[in-house]
């Protein structure tokens, strides 16, 4: 057990024992190698289940709105619970976004910021390892030793196994928090960026469309991307509406494309690039190449990075008389 893990457990146990929090959301050990799983602690003794390792990939902020929206069947008014949540940089930024969008109550939240050096992605690792299943991963000094089911050990540098969104991440520490455990990373340098996004930008319009529609054609409409995204808290998603029916029955590729265009664009100016949607996808649809454009544009057009502070108004909730008109078609 690492020192950070110990501190998280102690903090959790204290918060619950002192009645400062009703529930603490963190991670527990997963049932599969290189996985951790979200965990909900309500008793101080149960804090021992919590872990903090390189597999805490889920964006836990996704669970928060549920605590502040009463379930439709609950008629009686209950006071909103005090929720503590263990966050990485991306979760923390999502939390900030949700506060700004008034989905959760800041005063009912205890944000526990934990250090993140980028999380490791089991699917990326498995692909590097080959067909033999990973059974164990051990990490030491930026090196990861993977043991497969045949007992074969392979060494990787940590950077090789990073989840895609983690490679680009420049905000690994939560910007707003109440308690910090361990030493939060200060560096704003991306860990292992590659130029895949730039490569995509170089493609022609037709090539981009070809790649986009090919990616989307893998989608089976299980909605995992939507469910894993903290920003997808709409009570009824546009894709589920029947009057009007925005996206058709889902029977044709154009239906699926419309769904994804609509869902992705709804993240405009809100997406924190946590990669939850991409990792949730069982069919390996690469959504990030497309959502990343929204992150870039929010920065370039409106000088806005989602979830960094509680003050700045998200770009699409605001306007300025001097905003650019450059995209406007002039008839002459």
């Amino acid at each position: 057990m690492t020192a950070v893990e110990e501190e998280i457990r102690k903090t959790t146990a204290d918060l619950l024992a002192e009645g400062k929090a009703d529930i603490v959301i963190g991670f527990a050990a997963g049932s599969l190698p290189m996985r951790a799983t979200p965990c909900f602690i309500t008793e101080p003794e149960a804090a021992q289940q919590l872990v903090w390792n390189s597999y805490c990939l889920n964006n836990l902020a996704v669970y928060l709105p549920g605590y502040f929206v009463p379930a439709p069947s609950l008629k009686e008014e209950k006071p909103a619970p005090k929720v503590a949540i263990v966050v990485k940089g991306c979760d923390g930024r999502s939390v900030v976004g949700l506060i700004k969008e008034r989905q959760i109550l800041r005063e009912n939240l205890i944000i526990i910021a934990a250090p993140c050096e980028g999380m490791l992605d089991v699917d990326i690792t498995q692909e590097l390892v080959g067909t033999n299943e990973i059974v164990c991963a051990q990490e030491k000094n930026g090196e990861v030793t993977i043991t497969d089911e045949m007992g074969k050990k392979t060494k990787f540098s940590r950077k090789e196994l990073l989840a895609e969104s983690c490679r680009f991440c420049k905000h690994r520490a939560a910007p707003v928090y109440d308690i910090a455990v361990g030493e939060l990373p200060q560096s704003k340098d991306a860990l292992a960026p590659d130029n895949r996004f730039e490569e995509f930008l170089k493609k022609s319009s037709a090539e981009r469309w070809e790649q986009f529609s090919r990616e989307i054609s893998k989608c089976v409409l299980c909605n995992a991307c939507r469910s894993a995204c903290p920003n997808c808290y709409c009570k009824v998603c546009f894709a589920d509406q029947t009057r009007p029916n925005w996206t058709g029955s889902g029977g044709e590729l154009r239906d699926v494309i419309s769904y994804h265009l609509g869902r992705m664009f709804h993240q405009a100016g809100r997406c924190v690039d946590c990669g939850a949607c991409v990792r949730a996808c069982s069919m390996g649809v690469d959504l990030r190449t497309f959502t990343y454009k929204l992150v870039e544009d929010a920065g370039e057009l409106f000088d806005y990075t989602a979830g960094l502070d509680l003050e700045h108004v998200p770009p699409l909730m605001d306007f300025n008389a001097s905003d650019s008109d450059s995209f406007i078609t002039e008839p002459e």
Partner: protein
Amino acid sequence: MADSKIAKNKIPELIKAVSADYTLYGPKAEAGIVALGRIHSAEELMLDYRNSTISAKELFLPRAEVVYEFDGQKFVDDKLPDEKRVIFGIRPCDCRALALLDRNFDTDEVKDPFYVTRRQNTIVVALGCNQPLSSCFCTAVGGGPFGQEGADVLMGDVGDSLLAKAITSKGKDFLARYGKFFSTAGSGSWDKQAKEARDKMSAAPTLIKPAFGGSELNIENLKSHLDNLFEDEIWETISCKCLGCGACSYLCPVCYCFDLVDEKTASGIKKIRTWDCCMFSMFTHHASGHNPRSANFARLRQKIMHKFNYYTERYGVNGCVGCGRCIRSCPVNLDIRQVLEKIAAAPSATKEK
């Protein structure tokens, strides 16, 4: 009956011959996803796959299919699928799933003509699992890595060749028809192979022991446990981390729930059957706004109950084949084996009603 054997270097010829008579489907990798897709040549066929990302149910219950068309005045003739197919190399868990689906779609009272026709027109050639994954648990739910249920032919990989035995008369005809590619090998070592695979499976979970508290998953009394648990608070505990997406259901080879929707076309309308999922909040949403399963825990309960209680009650067998896809695909690592274990251990599970 003596088993047949085909040398692996003969497979391309077999594929060619079968392709001339049937539309051939088999495991192939495309854009990082392994699925049972159209096979045009032996190079595409990926027989050393572990299991397909998406299950074989797609081939019998497509994600979307037109069940009728109407031009405003009359119905356009219903087209039943007429493709004669061979699925080559499907895993025994997915085969067994077909046998489970038959119980819903091919009953005495109701038959789904689209499903039934596809089943009739398809020869299922299964390939036993020499190397089950650690997330596989077919043996715990009544199947096995060399299970035969739902298959017409079962094959086993024995290094440089594939053993094959006919399970059904359809399978017998298949092996007879392509007999020239097979040699008669006497009796194969099926039992030994199956045992080895099973041993591997029971060994595999030791690597992830925390999931099972050191013992193998036992679902013997699950149905009666679940009878007692409908009102239990266990569902709220279990469903805490569930995101309510449909990944588990859509990848499950047995989950068959569907929706029927109308779509306007240039010349009329078509009725389309699409996959649906009990985990979606709109699934049971009434027009009046009432929803009998408005909370996420109720939907997860429905999913578990449907598979391990209602299915068992209606059809005498639980609706899970242990392929492990739901475990591998769950974005939050909500492991169904752990769920079943918690159910088995719930204090009120064994109380007298």
